[in-house]
C-alpha cells in the first residue's frame, strides 16, 4: 500500500506525461506482480463496486476523529473530496503498513462488502490506524470506488510496453477487458500482460474486441482544410452519429457487444442477438449503436445508404432517434417487450476490423470500407445498417452538406483518411480520424444557483444552475425557470471573478448550494435538447457548458423558455 500511495502522490503532483510515465515505470519495475496487477486495474480505470456505504464511512470517520457531524460536513465542504477529508481529520499513524496492495485489497478491503455496520465499525478503524495520511486517503478512495488520478489507459499501456519491451498495441489488446468486474486481477493475469509475444496469441482472443480508435476534434475553418488535410478526395466522410460507440465481435459461434468504455453490453441489447446468425465467424465491426425506427420504406433506405447519396437526403437518416431515447433505455434495469418495441436499436456500421478471422486493421480505410459494404449487404439485417459515405468534390461542398447535421439528428461529420490504418486509442501514428462537429445550440441564460466544485475546484463556486425567462421582456411578474446545470468553460481568472460575485450576491445558503440575486448572464452551449417531464422547465438539454460570460448583457436581456422550445426537434 505504501508504494502504491507513493505512486499516487507522484502522479498527482505533476501534469507532465513524461513525469507520469516515469513514475509508472518506476512503480511497475519494483512492484510484486500481484500488487502490480491491482495497480493496473485501478490506473486503467477499473472500479470495483463501492465496498462500504458512504454514510457508514462518514460515521466511522467522525467517531475516529471525534468530531460532531456538522464540523465534519464543513470540513468536507471545504476539501471537496471525502477521502482527502477523512485523511486530514483522522489522527495520522506513525508509520504506514508494509502490506502490499494486493493483500490490502484481497484480505482486507474486498471482504468488507456487505458486512453489517457493527462489523465495519470493528475493522475499518483498525485498518486506518495502520496508514499514514497519504496511504489513508488512497485506501479510502479504493473503498469508495472514487480512485482517479489523471492517468490515461494509453499511458499505462505505454509504461507496461516499455517495461516489457512490447509493442504498445499488443499490450493495449491484452488490456482489453482487464478492468471488467468479473475478472479479478491476479499475478498471473498481470504476467500475461507483460509476457513476451506468443505465437498462439491470435487464437486466444475469444470475444475480445480491439482497442477502439478514437477521433480528434477538428477545429479549423473549412477554407484551411485543403492546406491542412489535402484534397477532399483523399478522405472518407460520414455522419457523426449520436449514439453509443460499439464493436460487434462474432467468433466461435458467439456474439459479443462491447462499448467504448470496454464494457461488455451484450445482455442489454437482446434485439441485436439475431446478428449471431447472420454474421460469419471471425468478424469484428466498429460502429455506433443508435435508436432506429424503421419506416415502411426500409428496403429503400438500405438501397439509398448503399448507393451513398451525394446529398444528405433526409430519407437516409430518417430512422435515427434522439439520444435521449437511448439514454432512457440504458437507464432501465429490466427490458420489457414494450420498451424493446418502442425503442428499437440498430448498429450503424462504419468499419471492419476483422474479416474471416483476419485482423483487418492494417488495411487502408477504403479497403476496409469495401469489405464492410459487402458484409452488410450480405447480412441483410435491419439491425445492421451501413453508415453512408458523403461525397463532395470540394471541402466547401462538404461543409454545405454538414449544415444539415442538426436537422438530421447527427453531431456533424467524421473525416477518415482513405489510406490510413485503424489505430489504437488516440494515437495518430498510422492515421487520423477527425470529428468535425457542428456548433452546439446556445442560449443566454441567467446564473441562479451556485455550488462548490469538487477536487481541484473544491473551494470555488464552479457548479452552476442556469435559468431562462418564462415570458418575453416587459411581461409583468415574469420569472426565471432553471433548466440546466453546467460547470466548465471559464478561464481560471474568470472563475475567480465569478466566485467573488457569487459570494457577494448570495441570497440564501442551503448546504453547499447558494441561491443568488440574478446578476450574471452566460452564453450556454449544449449538444441536444428534448422534452422532459422530470424538469420543471419541461425540457432537458444535453452536455450543457458555459461558452462565455456575457458581461455585455443584463439579466433582463437573457433568453426565454420559448426560444428553447423552438429548438426542440
Amino acid at each position, binding site marked *: 500500500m505504501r508504494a502504491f500511495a507513493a505512486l499516487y502522490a507522484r502522479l498527482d*503532483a505533476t501534469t507532465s506525461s513524461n513525469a507520469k510515465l516515469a513514475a509508472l515505470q518506476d512503480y511497475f519495475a519494483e512492484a510484486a506482480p500481484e500488487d502490480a496487477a491491482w495497480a493496473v486495474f485501478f490506473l486503467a480505470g477499473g472500479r470495483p463496486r463501492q465496498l462500504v456505504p458512504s454514510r457508514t464511512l462518514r460515521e466511522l470517520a467522525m467517531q475516529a476523529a471525534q468530531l*460532531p457531524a456538522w464540523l465534519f460536513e464543513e470540513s468536507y465542504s*471545504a*476539501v471537496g473530496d471525502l477521502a482527502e477529508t477523512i485523511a486530514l*481529520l483522522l489522527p495520522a499513524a506513525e508509520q504506514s503498513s508494509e502490506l502490499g496492495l494486493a493483500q490490502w485489497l484481497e484480505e482486507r478491503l474486498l471482504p468488507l462488502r456487505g458486512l453489517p455496520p457493527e462489523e465495519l465499525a470493528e475493522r475499518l478503524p483498525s485498518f486506518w490506524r495502520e496508514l499514514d495520511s497519504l496511504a489513508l486517503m488512497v485506501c479510502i478512495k479504493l473503498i469508495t470506488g472514487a480512485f482517479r488520478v489523471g492517468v490515461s489507459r494509453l499511458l499505462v499501456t505505454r509504461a507496461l510496453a516499455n517495461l516489457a519491451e512490447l509493442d504498445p498495441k499488443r499490450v493495449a489488446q491484452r488490456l482489453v477487458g482487464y478492468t471488467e468486474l468479473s475478472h479479478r486481477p491476479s499475478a498471473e493475469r498481470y504476467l500475461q500482460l507483460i509476457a513476451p509475444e506468443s505465437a498462439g496469441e491470435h487464437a486466444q482472443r475469444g470475444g475480445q474486441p480491439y482497442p477502439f480508435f478514437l477521433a480528434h476534434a477538428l477545429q479549423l475553418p473549412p477554407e484551411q482544410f485543403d492546406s491542412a488535410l489535402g484534397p477532399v478526395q483523399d478522405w472518407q466522410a460520414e455522419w457523426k452519429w449520436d449514439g453509443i460507440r460499439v464493436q460487434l465481435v462474432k467468433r466461435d459461434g458467439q456474439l459479443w457487444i462491447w462499448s467504448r468504455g470496454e464494457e461488455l453490453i451484450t445482455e442489454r441489447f437482446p434485439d441485436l442477438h439475431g446478428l449471431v446468425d447472420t454474421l460469419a465467424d471471425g468478424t469484428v465491426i466498429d460502429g455506433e449503436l443508435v435508436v432506429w425506427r424503421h419506416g415502411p420504406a426500409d428496403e429503400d433506405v438500405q438501397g439509398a445508404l448503399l448507393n451513398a447519396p451525394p446529398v444528405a437526403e433526409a430519407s437516409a437518416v430518417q430512422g435515427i432517434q434522439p439520444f435521449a431515447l437511448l439514454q432512457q433505455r440504458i437507464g432501465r434495469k429490466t427490458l420489457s417487450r414494450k420498451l424493446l418495441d418502442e425503442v428499437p436499436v440498430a448498429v450503424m456500421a462504419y468499419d471492419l476490423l476483422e474479416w474471416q478471422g483476419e485482423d483487418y486493421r492494417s488495411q487502408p480505410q477504403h479497403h476496409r470500407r469495401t469489405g464492410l459494404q459487402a458484409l452488410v449487404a450480405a447480412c441483410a439485417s435491419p439491425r445492421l445498417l451501413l453508415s453512408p459515405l458523403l461525397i463532395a468534390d470540394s471541402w466547401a461542398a462538404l461543409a454545405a452538406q454538414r449544415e444539415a447535421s442538426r436537422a438530421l439528428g447527427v453531431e456533424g461529420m467524421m473525416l477518415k483518411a482513405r489510406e490510413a490504418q485503424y489505430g489504437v486509442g488516440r494515437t495518430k501514428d498510422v492515421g487520423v480520424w477527425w470529428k468535425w462537429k457542428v456548433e452546439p445550440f446556445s442560449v443566454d441564460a441567467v446564473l441562479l444557483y451556485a455550488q462548490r466544485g469538487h*477536487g481541484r475546484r473544491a*473551494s470555488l463556486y464552479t457548479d452552476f444552475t442556469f435559468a431562462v425567462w418564462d415570458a418575453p421582456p416587459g411581461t409583468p411578474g415574469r420569472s426565471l425557470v432553471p433548466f440546466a446545470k453546467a460547470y466548465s468553460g471559464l478561464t481560471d481568472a474568470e472563475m475567480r471573478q465569478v466566485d*467573488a460575485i457569487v*459570494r457577494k450576491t448570495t441570497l440564501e445558503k442551503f448546504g453547499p448550494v447558494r441561491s443568488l440575486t440574478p446578476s450574471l448572464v452566460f452564453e450556454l452551449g449544449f449538444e441536444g435538447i428534448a422534452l422532459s417531464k422530470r424538469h420543471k422547465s419541461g425540457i432537458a438539454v444535453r452536455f450543457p457548458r458555459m461558452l462565455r460570460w456575457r458581461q455585455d448583457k443584463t439579466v433582463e436581456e437573457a433568453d426565454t423558455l420559448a426560444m428553447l422550445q423552438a429548438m426542440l426537434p
Partner: protein
Amino acid sequence: MDLVIARPEGLYCPPGDFYIDPWRPVERAVITHGHGDHARWGSQHYLAAAPGEGILRSRLGAEINLQTLAYGERINHHDVTLSLHPAGHVLGSAQVRLEYRGEVWVASGDYKVEPDATCAPFESVRCHTFITESTFGLPIYRWQPQAQIFAGVDDWWRQNQAAGRASVLFCYAFGKAQRLLQGIDASIGPILVHGAMEPLNQVYRDAGVALPDTLRVSEVPKGDPRLRQGLIMAPPSAGGSTWMRRFGDYSDAFASGWMLLRGARRRRGVDRGFVLSDHADWPGLNWAIAECGAERVFVTHGSVNILVRHLREQGLDAQAFDTEYGDEDDSAEAPTDATQEPA
C-alpha cells in the same frame, strides 16, 4: 462594559477612544502587525510594538506619526491600560491587551503558536475576553512541525540542483519569506530573491534577525550557473510573468498553509506545495483560546461561523466580529471564504 466593539472604521475601544487595526483612516490606531489588511495608511497616530517599527515605516511611510512600545510595557490612555504582547506571527506582531476597571480584553491580530526564529514567540495572556482570528479554523488544518517542512524544501532544492534546474519558491514577501530564509539550509547553494523581497529582508536584518546572504536576481547575469543551482524566492505575483523566463528549465513551488489541500495545490499549478503557515492551525487556535482563560470570545476573519459554533459547543460565550481583515494583496488565493490572507 465592552472594551472593543465593531464600528464601520474598524474595531474600536470606547473608553480609550482608539481603534485596533482600523480599515479606514482614524485619529488613533493601534496596529497589531504590518500585513496590509491590518496596517492601513492614513491614520493620525499609530501605536505598535517596537520590533515592528521598521516594517511599518517601510510600508506606511517613514514619516508616519508612530509611537512604539516594548513587548509588555504598559501605558495608560483615558484610564485604559494598554500593553502589547508577542503574537508569533511576523516580526513585530502583537496581541493588544486592554484593561479597564478590572476587565481584561486581548485582541490577537494574527497569531501562530509554534515559535520560530524570525520573531518573538506567541505569549499567552490571561484575559476575560479574547478576540481571535480564524484563518485556518477547520479541523482539517493541522500543521506538521516546521523543521519537516524546511527539510522538504531542502530536499526539493537539492534534487533540482542535481538535475540542473532552478528552484523557484513562491511565497509571501513579508514574514513567510524571512521564515523560509531562516529555516532552510543555506549551504546547499546560492539564494536569489526577487527585487520586491529584498527590502523586507533588510528590515529583518536591521532588527537583528539572522538571515543568510541573498542576491537580487537582477544582479545575476543571464546564463549565470547560479540561476540553475540557486533557490529563487519570489512573490506569487511573479509567477507566469516574463520575469520567469530567465530561469529556463525550472521547478516551482509555493509555500502557504493553503497548500495542505490538493485542490489548492492544483489551482496554483506549481510542481510542489509546501504547507507552511504563519497562522495557528486548528489545534493551535483551540489551545490559545483555552490557555488565555477567556469566557467570552470574539472571532474575526477566516472560518468565523465555524469557530464560533465550535466554541459555543465547548461552553464558551462566542460571537462573530465582522471585519475587513484577510483581504491581502496576494489575490491569487481563494481559500474557503471570500477573504484572502497571507497565510
